């Protein structure tokens, strides 16, 4: 039996092309494959390490054998164990003449070693030799190694050869040479700065593979410096056009789409080149629009290209037609059942919303669905979108959602991120002080230790400075509400340290200010805090100082001070503390209590935290003392710079810096570490400054009845995390902007959306919008909560724009339809809409527009062309069908159902859609068939299974799928 098995194995090895895999190797793979737990896998690998150490110590190991050992070592490292004892063998194998062995050697080295490893220097010579080889496969292998192993110091050793290879006759070599240059550029841009022109040259390479590879370095170069490459716009556009027109070899097709990965990279490049450049953008419009039409929207890859088109459209100079096409794709994404497409749709919406804020409206419910989805990925993406569309009217809802999500998750990284977003939004758009403080409390309570300390300081500063110059009552109201909320929160267990610091400070400063709470009550609470968090010295320090302040205010108000017993014991305890800071505070407290009211008022004035304290940095008041000391023969003070001469050396080093960067070994010692600049900007702030493009919203300001009293949203442009208190004062100081005003206005908008007939004070055009909104209720069942959420999220924007956007919210369309009389109403608007939205109108549509008396001036020839298109090219028809199938949906959702004449045409159109969808289906089924052919072939699988069984690697119950085909 045992013999049979061995024979079987040998046979199996023979049939596998004689790779000479030994029993040891097969057993290793088998045991790893069948390992039931991490611990078992660990044991196997540790055993394997011992075996390999033994084997490698044997003399005269055959090369084939060595290759196998290397692969086993790759396994060892892959499974998380150190194989450094055998690195040298991998290095040795790169010297071999046999290509397979050489390549395996290079592979093992590049998997084992980082490019700064000491052993790399032993390989550079081999690489140099291999780059000169006559066999292009050896050259390719060496270039692959160059891409992984060469660092900035070794670049000069291979650079000349790589440059030479750019003109190699084999396209595979040219392609890899380009990528090697790309690698040099990544590692040390200065080393190849004089060679950048090569990338431009290779863009025109005859071979599409070389051209495609060249796009990678060009992408990087353009990211850094757009302006130098503006001249290439024409080239990129023409390449993209050729790719889209299937001029590339068939082998680049992926799922019937011509070279989609190249298309995507080109679109990315165009997006950068066209950003903020009208002239460049205009050159791109046609090709992008063509791709919109040509892309197969039924496949993933087609949608990937379409998504990239949207990114491009949102980056380049605005074009209404493209925007329209992008909006159509987005709505298809969002309506899809696939979570992946929804995710892409939400992302794309976030990009487009910057240039066309109205676009979100028609997708309200889709967005809310995504927000409430249990899938975290989708949820977070939606928060990203909400963050981008936040304004004063919906900030409360959005921040509330963010906070409740923040509370629900454990992922600290994201928690920190979303907390900083909440703070940022609250600081920018807070509708009232009360709300702001409450929101900050919640953030601190649940993510306090993750929030930047600066935010806490800003909050204290805000409470101290107040908002209005003259409005003292509002300020004191704010303070008392803060005090009250803190007294409520303080009893809760395990509050974050930062939050406690804020609480202590505010209580000390303002706890007794309005006379509502007695000094003993507040000090009692503060003592409790100091006791409960006795191992947090910072909190204790804040608490003690707060107690001191309270007593000081009492004394200066000429009230009798009775120190609480627990307070006394706290002070006694702290005056013996190990922390000198706490000791000092405790002694200060004792000293302050002992002095008279007059003195206290000058050292501890009430509510003076914002007053400037003059500091004499030169210590001029000590001049007399210094003078006397010098007269007595003391040494004069020498400044630090003069003492060490550091300044000069620093300057010298700085000049030296750029040279040190360029490839040469450094021989002098590294310069001393400079003190860190303490301006730690949180990552979110950096990101947001680019993400949140301030959207100037003249519409809202003019047309919203509420907006008139709101501060202009656009002054929220800067999104730095710190509070901009200069701007804030104006923003929040207005008496009109009290919390009650904003409350009524939001409740008003709730009513209008929930009730069917209530119009309350909104203009007539608005009520029309509401009707349209309501009319879709029967078709899609939407819970009232969701509607409420929708109205509070999108309410601000849906109230605007009604007149301009006609019956159905499509504002972007409105620009195109200016030739249609607005007086014709929703009906003709909708018809015109249909005609405009499809490149290929059908007969029905034609008759439709003929029936309407207000026939819009549509070019009949254009429509004829459309008809021809339909019969000629199926691809365009599919496209049209996609457009058409979308239209009725919109009509059903948004159009006034009272227009009966239209409804019949809708029904007809549905039939047409069915037909076209059938053809679509036929097409997809074809695709399916062709893929089936490629898929699992039962005979093959059986054979393989039998083969593997022969080898003695039997599937066990733990891992039955080991043998199933991947593409099954």
């Amino acid at each position, binding site marked *: 039996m045992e013999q049979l098995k061995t024979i079987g194995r040998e046979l199996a090895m023979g049939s596998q092309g004689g790779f000479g895999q030994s029993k040891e190797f097969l057993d290793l*793979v088998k045991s790893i494959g069948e390992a039931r737990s991490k611990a078992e896998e660990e044991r196997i690998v540790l055993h394997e390490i011992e075996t390999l150490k033994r084997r490698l110590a044997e003399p005269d190991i055959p090369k084939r054998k060595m290759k196998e050992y290397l692969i086993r070592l790759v396994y060892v490292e892959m499974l998380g164990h150190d194989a450094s004892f055998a690195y040298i063998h991998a290095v040795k194998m790169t010297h071999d003449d046999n290509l397979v062995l050489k390549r395996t050697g290079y592979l093992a080295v590049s998997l084992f070693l980082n490019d700064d490893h000491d052993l790399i220097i032993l390989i550079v010579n081999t690489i140099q030799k291999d780059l000169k080889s006559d066999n292009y496969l050896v050259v390719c292998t060496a270039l692959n190694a160059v891409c992984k192993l060469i660092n900035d110091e070794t670049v000069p050793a291979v650079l000349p050869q790589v440059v030479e290879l750019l003109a190699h006759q084999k396209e595979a070599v040219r392609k890899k040479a380009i990528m090697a240059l790309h690698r040099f550029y990544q590692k040390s841009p200065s080393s190849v700065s004089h060679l950048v022109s090569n990338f431009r040259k290779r863009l025109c390479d005859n071979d599409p593979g070389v051209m495609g590879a060249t796009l990678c370095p060009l992408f990087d170069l353009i990211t850094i410096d757009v302006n130098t490459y503006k001249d290439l716009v024409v080239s990129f556009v023409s390449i993209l056009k050729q790719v889209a027109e299937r001029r590339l070899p068939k082998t680049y097709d992926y799922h019937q789409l011509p070279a989609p990965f190249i298309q995507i990279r080109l679109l990315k490049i165009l997006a950068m080149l066209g950003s903020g450049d009208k002239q460049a953008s205009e050159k791109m419009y046609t090709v992008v629009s063509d791709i919109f039409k040509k892309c197969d929207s039924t496949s993933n890859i087609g949608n990937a290209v379409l998504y990239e088109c949207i990114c491009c459209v949102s980056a380049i100079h605005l074009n209404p037609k493209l925007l329209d096409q992008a909006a159509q794709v987005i709505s298809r994404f969002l309506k899809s059942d696939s979570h992946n497409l929804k995710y892409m749709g939400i992302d794309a919406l976030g990009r487009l919303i910057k240039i066309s804020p109205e676009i979100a409206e028609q997708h309200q419910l889709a967005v809310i669905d995504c927000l409430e989805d249990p899938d975290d990925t989708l949820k977070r993406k939606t928060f990203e979108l909400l963050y981008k569309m936040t304004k004063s009217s919906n900030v409360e809802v959005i921040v509330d959602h963010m906070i409740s999500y923040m509370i629900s998750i454990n992922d600290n990284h994201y928690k920190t991120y979303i907390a900083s977003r909440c703070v940022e939004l609250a600081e920018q758009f807070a509708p009232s002080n009360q709300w702001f403080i409450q929101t900050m409390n919640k953030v601190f309570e649940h993510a306090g230790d993750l929030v930047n300390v600066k935010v806490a300081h800003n909050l204290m500063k805000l409470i101290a400075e107040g908002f209005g110059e003259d409005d003292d009552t509002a300020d004191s109201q704010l303070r008392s509400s803060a005090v009250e909320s803190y007294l409520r929160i303080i009893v809760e267990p395990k509050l974050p340290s930062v939050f406690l610091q804020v609480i202590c400070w505010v209580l000390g400063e303002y706890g007794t200010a309005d006379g509502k709470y007695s000094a003993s009550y507040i000090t009692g609470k503060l003592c409790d805090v100091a006791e409960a968090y006795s191992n947090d010295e910072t909190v204790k320090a804040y608490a003690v100082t707060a107690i001191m302040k309270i007593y000081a205010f009492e004394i200066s108000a000429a009230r009798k001070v009775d120190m609480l017993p627990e307070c006394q014991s706290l002070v006694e305890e702290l005056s013996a503390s190990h922390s000198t800071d706490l000791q000092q505070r405790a002694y200060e407290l004792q000293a302050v209590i002992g002095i008279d009211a007059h003195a206290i008022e000058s050292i501890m004035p009430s509510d003076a935290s914002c007053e400037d304290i003059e500091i004499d940095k030169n210590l001029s008041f000590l001049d007399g003392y210094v003078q006397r000391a010098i007269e007595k023969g003391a040494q004069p003070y020498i400044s630090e710079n003069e003492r060490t001469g550091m300044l000069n050396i620093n300057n010298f080093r700085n000049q030296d810096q750029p040279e040190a960067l360029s490839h040469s070994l450094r021989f002098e010692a590294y310069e001393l570490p400079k003190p860190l600049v303490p301006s730690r900007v949180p990552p979110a702030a950096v990101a947001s400054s680019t993400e949140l493009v301030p959207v100037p919203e003249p519409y809202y300001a003019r047309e919203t009845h509420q907006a008139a009293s709101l501060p202009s949203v656009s002054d929220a442009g800067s999104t730095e995390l710190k509070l901009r208190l200069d701007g804030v004062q104006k923003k929040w100081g207005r008496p009109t902007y009290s919390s009650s005003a904003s409350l009524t206005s939001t409740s008003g908008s709730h009513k209008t959306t929930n009730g069917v007939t209530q119009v309350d004070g909104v203009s007539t055009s608005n009520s029309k919008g509401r009707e349209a909104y309501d009319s879709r209720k029967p078709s899609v069942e939407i819970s009232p909560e969701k509607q409420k959420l929708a109205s509070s999220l999108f309410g601000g924007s849906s109230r605007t724009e009604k007149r301009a956007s006609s019956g159905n919210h499509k504002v972007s369309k409105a620009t195109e339809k200016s030739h249609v009389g607005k007086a014709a109403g929703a009906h003709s608007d909708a018809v015109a809409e249909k005609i405009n939205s499809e490149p290929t109108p059908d007969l029905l549509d034609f008759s439709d527009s003929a029936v309407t008396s207000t026939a819009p001036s549509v070019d009949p020839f254009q429509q004829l062309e459309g008809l021809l298109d339909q019969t000629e090219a199926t691809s365009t028809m599919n496209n049209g069908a996609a457009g058409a199938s979308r239209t009725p949906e919109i009509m059903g959702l948004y159009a006034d159902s009272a227009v009966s004449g239209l409804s019949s045409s809708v029904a007809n159109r549905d039939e047409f859609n069915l037909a076209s969808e059938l053809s679509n289906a036929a097409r997809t089924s074809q695709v399916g068939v062709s893929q089936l052919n490629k898929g699992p072939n039962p005979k093959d699988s059986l054979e393989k299974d039998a083969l593997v069984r022969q080898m003695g690697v039997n599937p066990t119950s733990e891992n039955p799928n080991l043998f199933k085909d991947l593409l099954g």
Partner: protein
Amino acid sequence: MGIRFILMVNKQGQTRLAQYYEHLTLQERRALEAEIVRKCLARNEQQCSFVELRNYKIVYRRYVSLFFLVGVDNDENELAILEFIHLIAETMDRHFGNVCELDIMFHLERAHFMLDEMVLNGCIVETSKTNILAPIQQMDKT
């Protein structure tokens, strides 16, 4: 940079192939792979094939017992990466003929050779299956 790493992990969470395009120490790799396995393998079919992790994203796709996971920068087109994974699978399928987990285990170096043809410096450089497989087939002839 684009692609930061390509991983193949079976559904028990055992690594079957790992290719990193930036340097990580052995410990960092272990920690990263453990975290990815924890986050991605528990997800169901309906959920997105994308997972955001720290400052990058993971796009993954499951083939019977094997997960292909690709870590990409945040500005990468997720859907395209998802299809790139499929391209990898198709390419391996063409080479091995009905590729399965064992093929990759027995021919780890070949799987790596294919990836080396497709991705360099973290960028997708070749997407034509013919071009990807040509050097490997020629290598066999020699």
